[in-house]
């Protein structure tokens, strides 16, 4: 993956998740942060920090992004997204 296509999401504990930009754009918040005309630090570095989101949650969120892209693309496939209770 080229650097330009990716975005880094940083959890509360400091874990960094590098995912495709397209996947990150599923979230309106992240999309606004990255595409807004104003100069967010995030736009420059391509990094978004979430100090209140724990690592396990952020991991699940990234998985959800990819699942959502798959779902939209192949709507006839009933993909099941499993959220473990422990999360």
């Amino acid at each position: 993956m080229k650097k330009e296509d990716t975005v880094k999401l940083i959890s509360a504990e400091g874990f960094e998740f590098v995912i495709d930009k397209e996947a990150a754009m599923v979230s309106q918040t992240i999309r606004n942060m990255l595409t807004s005309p104003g100069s967010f630090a995030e736009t420059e570095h391509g990094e978004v920090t979430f100090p209140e989101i724990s690592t396990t949650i952020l991991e699940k969120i990234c998985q959800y992004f990819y699942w959502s892209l798959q779902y939209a693309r192949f709507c006839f496939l009933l993909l099941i997204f499993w959220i473990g209770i422990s999360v």
Partner: protein
Amino acid sequence: MTVLRSREVLPTNPKPEPVKDRADIEPATPSQNREAATLCSPEPTPVSRRSARLASKSSVSGDDERVSVHNDAKRKRKLDVSADLSGPVVGEGEAVLSLRSGRKVTKRSAGNDGDESVESEIRVEAKNSNADSVANDRGKEPVRDVSEEGVADVVVEISGMDRSGDETDNSDKRLGGFSREEKGKAKLVDVSNGINFVELGLENEVENSVDTRVSDVDHHEEIGVTNANESGSGSGNTRMEQFRDIARQNASRFAHFANEREMPAGEVPEEIEDWPGPFSTAMKIIRDRGEKLSSKRGAYSLERGKTTSIKWIPKIGHGAGRSKVSVPSLKELSLKILVKNADAITSLENVPDALRHKLSQMLCDSRGMNSHFLDLLVRGSPTEIRLRDCSWLTEQDFTKSFEGCDTSNLMVLQLDRCGRCMPDYTVLSTLARSLNSLPALTTLSLCGACRLSDDGLRALASSAPALRCLNLSQCSLLTSTSIDILADSLGSVIQELYINDCQRIDAMLILPALKKLNHLEVLSVAGIETVSDDFVGEFISAGGHNMKELVLSDCVKLTDFSLKVIAESCPGLCALDISNLCKLTDFAIVYLANGCRAIQTLKLCRNAFSDEAIAAFLETSGESLKELSLNNVKKVADNTALSLARRARYLINLDLSWCRNLTNEAVGLIVDSCSSLRMVKLFGCTQITNVFLDGHSNPEVKIIGLKMSPVLEHLKVPDPEEVPLQYFSMLSSL
């Protein structure tokens, strides 16, 4: 044409004169009509008239001249005739037909004015004439003759002519025209109505009554009778009638509304002061639209005309490209998992109220709600507790859960369908355990608390001094004194009151108490049968200026008068629900359009409003509408669709269930043009096919009700968080 009819009707008096009449009648044009009216000089003497009337055709020919001459008199005479006809006086020979036909004659003549100019002429003349004398003259032929200076005669004659025209070949057209005109018109059954109209000197009324009586047989009879009775109204009548018919056809809708207003019981004032209002402007737009269409139609059948009126081309192939599958959000997925495993939830601490409500709502709907979750909700010092369905809750569980509940911060409490668990003593031991035990409570909903009586309510009212929004729907034990209790303790704070279906509450008895609630903004009295026009009139005139929402569905006694009062006194009305009020006529819509310009939510259901009325209302107030329900308003058709497409820019929810006159094109146009539209209900509209479903190009709208997929899913998704206490959110944000 006239000749034929007259012949049929008056077999005893065949005369060459009718032929002459025919000749006169044939070149029937409005101008001619007027000419005839103006040219003729009022020669005939009363005696001659009378004789003519009594006589057969011969007299008819005589009447010709008279008719044309006595334009003024005509009207009165017509009235008289009708009066006579309605009465036992049948002397004209066509006794058998006279009564019925006489009435019809009158009415038809009234309604047959195809020429507006003629109408106005007649109207003017009629007004000039002595309506009183006309009325008095009923039953007196000679008097009739003498006093007739109105256009009534002309009218009658014209109507006679019209009839003849209808009866003959042209009848199809005329009848077709009438039927179009008559669509949605109230049916006048009594001659007395016509007579009343006559007395008022308003031609419109007569027209209306006439219109409703169109029928072939009647035409024949009427014409015959007219000829016979009006002795001489024959040829002149037929000519006039033809012209009148044409005029009437074009002006029928205009006249229609005036008539309809007149028609209902005396509560509705019978003036036409509404005319120079926004509604009439809108009506003109609609009529012009309709006339343009009808002129375009020409030879086309009605159905083709309909489709050409709405130009909407479904986008074929577009639907395939547009993915209708919306990806479920992570929040939805998470909530679903949580609901499935609600028992495993150990704490709802720090969970925002919105999520709590969503969880409890989903749990209640899936019947998974139990005391464990209730305890979770109640734990801590909750600010909002919402339970849509407490039917599973027993008294003991309720007492246990709420006894230990810290209610000092509770602002919103919703315990719907709590009848089982909420007798008075439970309330006293839990919620109302002490004075001021609910100090912060602003919103309380106890729908279906069927064991709650006035005493329990008193206790609650005294414990919740800040209560602003109170929902006591379906609390069947409450009586009228409960409203007195509310007025005494919460009179100055309460802003929303819902007492739907509380049958023991008598509307008139609670009037004084309601008037004491000076900040009341929302009142819902749906289903209370004692709600009448008097109640609405008094209550609205006392405190109507504050009202933002009124729910009057199922209060079947209400008539247009209530709507008139509401429209006049509630300028800030935002939401109105008048479902199932079958006595309302188009005048209700007229009043609404002229009075409540800022209305945002309008719920109509099974009302008998016409397509044009709704369309005109949308033209005037459609911009502010956010939610509209036209459920079972059967006459809704293309006019409404066009107005919706043009005006309803901010419309979010639309209910067009059971509107079977809407075509694919109409609904497609609406959906494509209303860009804010998010939900369209089309239950019972089996005439809508995939042409629309696949062809509309609005990506965000949800169509509900066509394919019988699980309805609840659809209903949940587009509906905003169900807040029974709507304005509270508005208030809290202030």
